């Protein structure tokens, strides 16, 4: 266990976001605690404000109110690339890839933060830039190996199946050396087998000391992987707790069953 005095890894205090008349996020507070390597999930029905919340944490959208703290430092309103450099890195829902590039080249490209050569050195192709380039590729291979993706390291992205592309997205997130990794629906569109594999890898990443915050729809996977769950409903946080507590929380059941009733009504 870490010492009590270590700073809170990631903390959102009273985050709100207003789009005109719509309050997308209303006074949401979460904390990842002080223990590294935990998996925390944010769940909620469609339109609950999960994506907005994620964007505010990573600087892609400025909160109307509230603060975000990373290891005790206020990062509210910083540019996304600066937040990434401080160790809070997000992945994306849609698999955006370069069809012609190999998996290895994707991860090497995503390893920009570790580059030491200046842009001018890169342009001139100096020895320092070449060394950087070699190191970035070596690092990329290391990351792919860690995620059991080294078998497809040299495969061109357009030939990879969907499940692999999802994992490649996570590998690109890992390339930025995150301390906290935010996964945006990492299991969406995966078949059960692929989901199991991805869940296993998520746990592996967490065990390596990277704290994970994920937004997900797949309840089974969330219940299986999470140490802690926060539930959003129409922009408000209605519950938090362990998977067991959430499963038995009346408000949560109501929020989700209400949705299921509608489904039956169709």
């Amino acid at each position: 266990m870490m010492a009590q005095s270590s700073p809170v890894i990631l903390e959102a205090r009273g985050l709100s976001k207003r789009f005109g008349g719509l309050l997308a996020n209303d006074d949401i507070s979460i904390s990842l605690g002080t223990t590294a390597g935990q998996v925390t999930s944010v769940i909620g029905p469609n339109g609950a404000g999960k994506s907005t919340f994620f964007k505010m944490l990573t600087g892609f959208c400025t909160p109307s109110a509230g603060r975000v703290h990373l290891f005790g430092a206020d990062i509210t309103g910083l540019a996304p690339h600066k937040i990434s450099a401080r160790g809070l890195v997000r992945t994306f829902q849609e698999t955006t890839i370069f069809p012609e590039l190999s998996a290895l080249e994707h991860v090497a490209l995503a390893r920009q933060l570790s580059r030491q050569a200046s842009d001018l050195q890169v342009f001139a192709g100096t020895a320092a830039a070449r060394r950087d380039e070699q190191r970035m590729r070596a690092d990329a291979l290391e990351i792919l190996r860690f995620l059991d993706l080294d078998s497809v390291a040299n495969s061109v992205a357009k030939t990879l199946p969907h499940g692999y592309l999802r994992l490649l997205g996570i590998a690109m997130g890992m390339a930025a050396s995150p301390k906290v990794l935010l996964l945006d629906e990492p299991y969406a569109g995966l078949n059960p087998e692929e989901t199991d594999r991805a869940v296993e890898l998520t746990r592996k990443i967490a065990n390596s000391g990277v704290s994970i915050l994920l937004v997900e729809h797949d309840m089974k996977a969330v219940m299986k992987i999470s140490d802690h769950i926060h539930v959003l409903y129409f922009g408000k946080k209605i519950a938090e707790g362990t998977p067991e507590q959430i499963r038995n929380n009346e408000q949560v059941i109501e929020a989700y069953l209400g949705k299921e009733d509608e489904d039956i009504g169709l």
Partner: protein
Amino acid sequence: MNDDKRRDLGAILLVLCVLLVLPLAFGQSHYLMSVLMNCAGVAIIASGVWLTFCIGRINICQAGFALIGGYVSAILIARLGWSFWLALPLSGLVAGLCGALIGSVILKLKGIYFSMLTICLTEAIRLAFLNGGSLTQGAKGITGLPQAFAGDSALPLYYIGVALLALTLGVVWRVHYCRLGGIFRAMRLNEDLAESFGVNVWRYRIMAFAIACALGGLGGSYFTLFAQSIYPQSFTVEHSIYYMLFCFLGGLEYVSGAMIGAFVLTILFELLQDFQQYQSLIYGVLMIVVMLTLPNGLMALRLRLWWLPLRKGEAQ
């Protein structure tokens, strides 16, 4: 080096070599030399537009920066009596700085909004020079620049054009195929994704745009040299649109695309001189046909061109 890259390099070297040896046979033809100088000039300018495509922005203000480059050299040479050797690089620099300044404001916009704004920018820059008072002399422009080289031969200026084109292509090639090009591609694909892995997209956007504008300024300055004059009408919205079309026609995936498009369309336009009033009509129809049948540009043409390699999957 993969096939596409080899094909790209092949096309560049081929055009440059042809440009180098052509004057041996046709050096006396002032008409042909001026057509080729024109081609080299627009290829330099259009390469800048091509570079802005790399970061996912359609740039229709390149004529404005060519105008800036042209006026800077005209003022330096005609007013202050500077040598064109100094005026040429300096006009590229000034245009690049203007690009960085203007870019830091307008590059926040994306897609059609950016393009619309750049069209307006071309016009705004033209109007600025039209109303520049005694410095730019309004619609009369600045004329009577001294000849760059004494004597009747167009060759020295021609070779300067070829050298500038080679320099331009070298810079764009290097940017595109080094790590910076990878970052630009990531930004074109998804700026948020690029930013999430720590790329300062604001910085790279401005960098790409400034280089593009500098190339525009350099090309504009070169035009001023051989035309020995510059007017607000020298570079207009129409020109900006042509530069963009050159890139589409040549191919957006190849560094040589802008140059190929510029040479093919400019020479074609000259060949169509004989048809007078139908010139633009034929030109337009040809453009439509090429764009429909070759959406990836002429450089993607599935032909075995001498020693240029075939694209993947074309081997017999």
